[in-house]
């Protein structure tokens, strides 16, 4: 009998420390904390269990995980891909998860593959992460815990590397840039086969649901958006990745975890494709789609980036827009031409007080929705939210002053 089977199954984690509850990244610590992954007689049942748990994707889009799995399970010879390429500079939760809990991600990948009937499995992440995954796979094989072959592919170091079609392009041996998509990946993805692409955190959550069930999963979070999520907190005094229940108050994160006085906060950004939330609205902001929708924001991939009062919102946005323009894959005309123009005009307003906001709004509208991927839409969303949230600062900039005394171009995004 193998070592892991002789272990008594430990109890489910209580509280909200779920994903990072093991004492270390090794298999022994993993099994001591969570016990082995159950092997159900009918692996497909996991799809119903995940649906009942109400797990939504943790990669940003928030699509129901169970529904995506069901769509893929209907097809022939499906493929499962674990996506750990977080191109977003303000996110490091996938890296933390792969570093601290690689076995949970691999359990989730295995369980998902069994559930949809996939034999081919991929894991796509930055090369340093792959080293850790390789070690974890060797441990699983040596212990006789899991002999599944998983193909590892190093992710490109670019903002768009983790975009779904870019991931599939890379896995197919092409450049890691987005592609035009006429048919859903669930029906026709890698080499035309039904492909399930899940963020690594979604898979880790799935591995917990497979063990402890939907009722346990729903014991934290909100009724409509259950469970926990990993958050990357930055711009605060204390920064890093924390696990919080869905519906957690953003203000609590900033004060308790971030050790930052809310009076010092100018606004919060949920990622470079996200929207600004002004300090005045933070009291209403909790990490759920329902609570953030009126603020035109979403929990996204769990980014909470704090802009403090000593930074200018318009300049920060101009810097990020410049970065987004540089990160365009330069395939689609409106994005290739429009994003640099958008960055330039916003930069002219933020740094020199030149340019009418109306022209910036027009350019944002001009790029919105006009690309193979959502990169131009995300840039348009960010810029529009800046013009709304920092509207009072615009006349100051036009008069040649700014809400902040001294700042050099590009300073914010380089911090």
């Amino acid at each position, binding site marked *: 009998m193998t070592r892991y089977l002789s272990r008594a199954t430990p109890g489910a984690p209580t509280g909200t420390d779920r994903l990072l509850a093991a004492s270390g990244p090794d298999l022994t610590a993993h099994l001591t904390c969570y016990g082995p992954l159950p092997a159900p007689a009918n692996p497909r049942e996991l799809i119903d269990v995940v649906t009942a748990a109400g797990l939504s994707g943790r990669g940003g889009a928030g699509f129901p995980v169970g529904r995506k799995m069901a769509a893929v399970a209907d097809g022939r010879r499906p493929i499962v891909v674990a996506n750990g390429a977080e191109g977003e500079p303000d996110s490091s939760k996938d890296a933390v998860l792969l570093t601290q809990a690689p076995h949970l991600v691999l359990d989730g990948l295995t369980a998902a593959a069994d559930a949809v009937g996939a034999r081919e499995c991929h894991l796509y992440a930055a090369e340093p992460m792959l080293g850790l995954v390789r070690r974890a796979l060797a441990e699983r094989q040596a212990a006789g815990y899991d002999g599944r072959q998983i193909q590892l592919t190093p992710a490109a170091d670019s903002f768009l590397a983790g975009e779904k079609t870019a991931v599939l392009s890379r896995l197919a041996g092409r450049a890691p840039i*987005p*592609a*035009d998509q*006429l048919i859903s990946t669930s029906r026709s993805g890698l080499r035309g086969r039904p492909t399930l692409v899940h963020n690594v955190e979604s898979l880790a959550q799935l591995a917990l649901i497979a063990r402890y069930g939907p009722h346990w999963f729903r014991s934290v979070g909100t009724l409509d958006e259950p469970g926990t999520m990993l958050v990357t907190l930055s711009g605060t005094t204390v920064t890093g990745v924390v696990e919080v229940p869905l519906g957690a108050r953003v203000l609590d994160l900033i004060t308790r975890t971030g050790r930052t006085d809310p009076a010092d906060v100018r606004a919060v950004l949920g990622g470079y494709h996200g929207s600004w939330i002004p300090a005045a609205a933070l009291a209403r902001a909790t990490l759920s789609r329902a609570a953030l929708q009126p603020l035109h924001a979403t929990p996204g991939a769990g980014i909470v980036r704090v802009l403090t009062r000593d930074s200018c919102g318009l300049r920060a946005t101009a810097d990020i827009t410049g970065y987004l323009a540089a990160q365009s894959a330069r*395939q*689609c*005309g*409106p*994005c290739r*031409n*429009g994003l640099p*123009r958008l960055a330039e005009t916003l930069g002219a307003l933020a740094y020199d007080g030149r340019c009418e906001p109306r022209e910036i709004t027009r350019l944002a509208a*001009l790029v*919105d*929705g*006009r*690309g*193979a991927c959502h990169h131009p839409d995300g840039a348009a969303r960010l810029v529009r939210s800046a013009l709304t949230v920092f509207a009072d600062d615009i006349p100051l900039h036009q008069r040649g002053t700014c809400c902040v005394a001294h700042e050099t171009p590009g300073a914010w995004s380089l911090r």
Partner: protein
Amino acid sequence: MTTERDRQPWRLHIDWTRCEGRGLCIELLAGTLARDDWGFPRARDHGDPAIGRYQLAAARDAVALCPRLALTLRK
């Protein structure tokens, strides 16, 4: 018998990774597509534009004649 699919309008899909703004489709579908700042086709709502019955022939021409093979007509 008309099905749900029959009632849906045809839509002109632009593959932005292929389009280079040669502009033939803009000429052929003047009411539906306009030129943006850089010469690329622009539909009113930015989605794949719906193609009415009377424009279907012109849209088929646009699909066939696009030098970049960037257009697809689909339901």
